[in-house]
């Protein structure tokens, strides 16, 4: 088992880094998973990293000399290749070592036995195609509302469901909920829904680059995304996503309309005085919107937000500033609306122009 090739440093370094993002950082589990698998067939080099839940494979064109398979320690290989001088890098596997040569440097890195690397199957469902840019934007609009708490596995996923001939993405960490509709992307059959780990979608969004399309294959237990030379395969999360339809209020007596970046800048400023988990208060009246933050023993901030238009009863609602900012940041368009019922009911943040995005946010109760 030889394996010998030459590759441009920057191409190889990027491929190792991308595949390495799936490599487990939790030590211990299975030592071989700290490695990336390199497989050369002709001039095609495929680098794969996996933590068994998420697998990322990157295929790059190299000058192949000898086909073969080898597993290298991911972080070390990546660090070495990134550190050498720009230009060609030669990799040769001999016995138990991988030799990495890039004049004037020469490294020999001990291999991890390749036969221990798990057999990773790819989902065998029919391939469907998604618009890469639109899907990437949709992921970025919902991934923040997904939970990062492993104690609640279902909430760490993004629900992908067929909805009225399109594709709907939904995520929630139980404090807020994002819903994004991709009209016309009928990649799932009607009624079909899968729960995809948000981490996998985040990695996918990262590698989209200038590619135009993403190919999706769904299996029983996993989903595979291919974009350009990268494939991202992920286990699906089993379990029932919380019902969310009933949560979205249909009747809002109060509506605030405001320029998105104006509000975003104002909340970012006022947030500086909302420390130690104190909220930012939005005081809404016929005069418009005032933001207030008060942290005991630290200080306070006030800002009257320019050109905010409010229709409804005078109302003050308190929000976690981070959650509020997350929603304002990802809402599409220049103008947003915030619809409220009262200070304890979920507030609905929408784009004034684009009906395909909703961000539902629970207030902070101050007693």
């Amino acid at each position, binding site marked *: 088992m030889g394996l010998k090739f030459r590759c441009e440093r920057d191409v190889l370094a990027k491929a190792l880094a991308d595949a390495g993002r799936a490599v487990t950082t939790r030590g211990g589990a299975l030592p071989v998973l700290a490695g990336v698998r390199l497989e050369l067939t002709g001039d095609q080099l495929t680098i794969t990293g996996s933590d068994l839940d998420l697998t990322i494979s990157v295929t790059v064109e190299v000058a192949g000399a000898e086909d073969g398979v080898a597993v290298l320690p991911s972080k070390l290989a990546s660090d070495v290749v990134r550190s050498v001088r720009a230009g060609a890098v030669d990799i040769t596997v001999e016995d138990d070592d991988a030799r990495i040569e890039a004049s004037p440097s020469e490294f020999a890195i001990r291999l991890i036995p390749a036969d221990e690397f798990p057999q990773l199957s790819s989902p065998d469902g029919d391939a469907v195609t998604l618009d890469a840019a639109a899907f990437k934007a949709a992921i970025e609009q919902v991934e923040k509302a997904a939970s990062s708490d492993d104690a609640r596995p279902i909430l760490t996923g993004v629900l992908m469901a067929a909805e009225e001939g399109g594709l709907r993405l939904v995520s929630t960490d*139980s404090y807020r909920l994002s819903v994004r509709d991709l009209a016309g992307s009928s990649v799932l059959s009607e009624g079909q829904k899968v729960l995809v780990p948000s981490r996998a979608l985040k990695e996918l969004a990262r590698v989209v680059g200038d590619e135009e399309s993403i190919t999706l294959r769904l299996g029983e237990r996993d989903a595979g995304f291919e974009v350009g030379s990268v494939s991202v395969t992920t286990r699906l999360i089993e379990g029932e996503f919380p019902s969310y339809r009933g949560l979205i209020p249909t009747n809002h007596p109060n509506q605030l309309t405001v320029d998105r970046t104006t509000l975003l800048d104002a909340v970012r400023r006022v947030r500086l005085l909302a420390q130690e988990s*104190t909220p930012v208060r939005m005081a809404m009246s016929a005069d418009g919107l005032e933001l207030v933050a008060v942290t005991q023993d630290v200080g306070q901030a006030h800002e009257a937000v320019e050109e905010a238009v409010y229709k409804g009863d005078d109302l003050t609602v308190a929000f976690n500033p981070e959650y509020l900012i997350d929603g304002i940041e990802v809402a599409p368009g220049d103008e947003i609306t915030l619809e409220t019922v009262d200070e304890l009911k979920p507030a609905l943040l929408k784009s004034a122009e684009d009906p395909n995005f909703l961000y539902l946010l*629970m207030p902070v109760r101050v*007693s």
Partner: protein
Amino acid sequence: MSQAGRPPDGTLGFVHVDMDAFFAAVELRRRPELRGQPVVVGGTGDRGVVAAASYEARLFGIHSAMPSTRARRLCPHAVFLPGDHAHYGEVSAAVMAILRDVTPLVEPLSLDEAFLDVRGALHGEDRAAAIAAEIRARVLAEQRLTCSVGVATNKFLAKLATERAKPKASPSGPVFGSGVHVVPVGAELDFLHPMPVRELWGVGPATAKRLSSMGIETVGDLAAQPVRRLEKGIGKAAGAHLHALANARDDRPVVTDQELKSIGHEETFARDLCTHEDLRPQLMRMADAVAARLRAGSVLGRTVTIKVRFADFSTITRSVTVPEPLDGARAIGIEAEALLRRLDPTPGVRLLGVSLSQLVDGSVRQLTLDEARGPSWSEADSVVDEIREKFGSSAIGPAALASKGEGIRRFEVGQQQWGPDRAPASGSD
């Protein structure tokens, strides 16, 4: 997290509890043969001082902090006992635990004295008085010790009220006090002004003498003085301070002495319980009591612990930590019951306890979307709190108790009001 109550706001709810002749009473409890005799606890050597004197001993003029040699001269036939501080500490902890059952806002001043802020558990004037009476009754029932309780709109007045409630020494033996004295809202000055100035905190013999030379004998005289004159006469800080007190102003909140680590409730049963069916209603009642206290103290807890003591006195605890902090009776009950279900009660359970730890501030709380689903359990809890506020703590309780003859009458509650049972957090459509 540290705990401080709100400053006074004019409502009745500051409670001062003072044990009656504490060390002496504790000694009499374990030496009942000494009852009726003058008993003095403290240093028995030549340099010792009196730590406590029974009311019979006080009749001879003995009081705490007096040199023991002088006490002996005043009453040679008194029984002098050395102090057993380790034991008093244990008894004190048990009394403080009773107080913390009422509210987490307990500020111990010493082993035998504490302030409570019960406004969170309130209710109006009658309730504050009722809580004071409950405290006395529980301390007597559980510790066989008496205490006196003052209730007022701030700490300073509550402490003075306690003095009114105290037993007094008299030639024919101790005269029991009222036990509880309430200074009603609006009656603060009527209560305060006839008192001699010496009654005020911070007025020692020297200050009293100086005030007297200024023609000030009663608290009312003091209140009528311009602050300037007082400041000139007895110093700036003391003058302003006494003037505020004389006008019944004291804005100090109740501050707990320690970080509040857990809130719990436990009970020993009259007979050992051997089945889950018998234990469940008890557990639900305790979950309800703990939840009410969490809400009264504006805290939530993430870790639910149950404590089980079996007939042979072996004791175990089991706990679970949940992602979302809890203050609801139902949610705490569900977690506690899941823990209990894993235990075998057949050897007989004599004591059961439920407590919540990993407490977080509940005054600012990120709401969850689950709370937006129809009428929520937290709304039900606040209705329960309101009902209890109006009608007392036994007016409403968990349905699990209804069939168990716990004194709760059962009504059929409409689905509309309470909503149907639903699966927790991650339920389905």
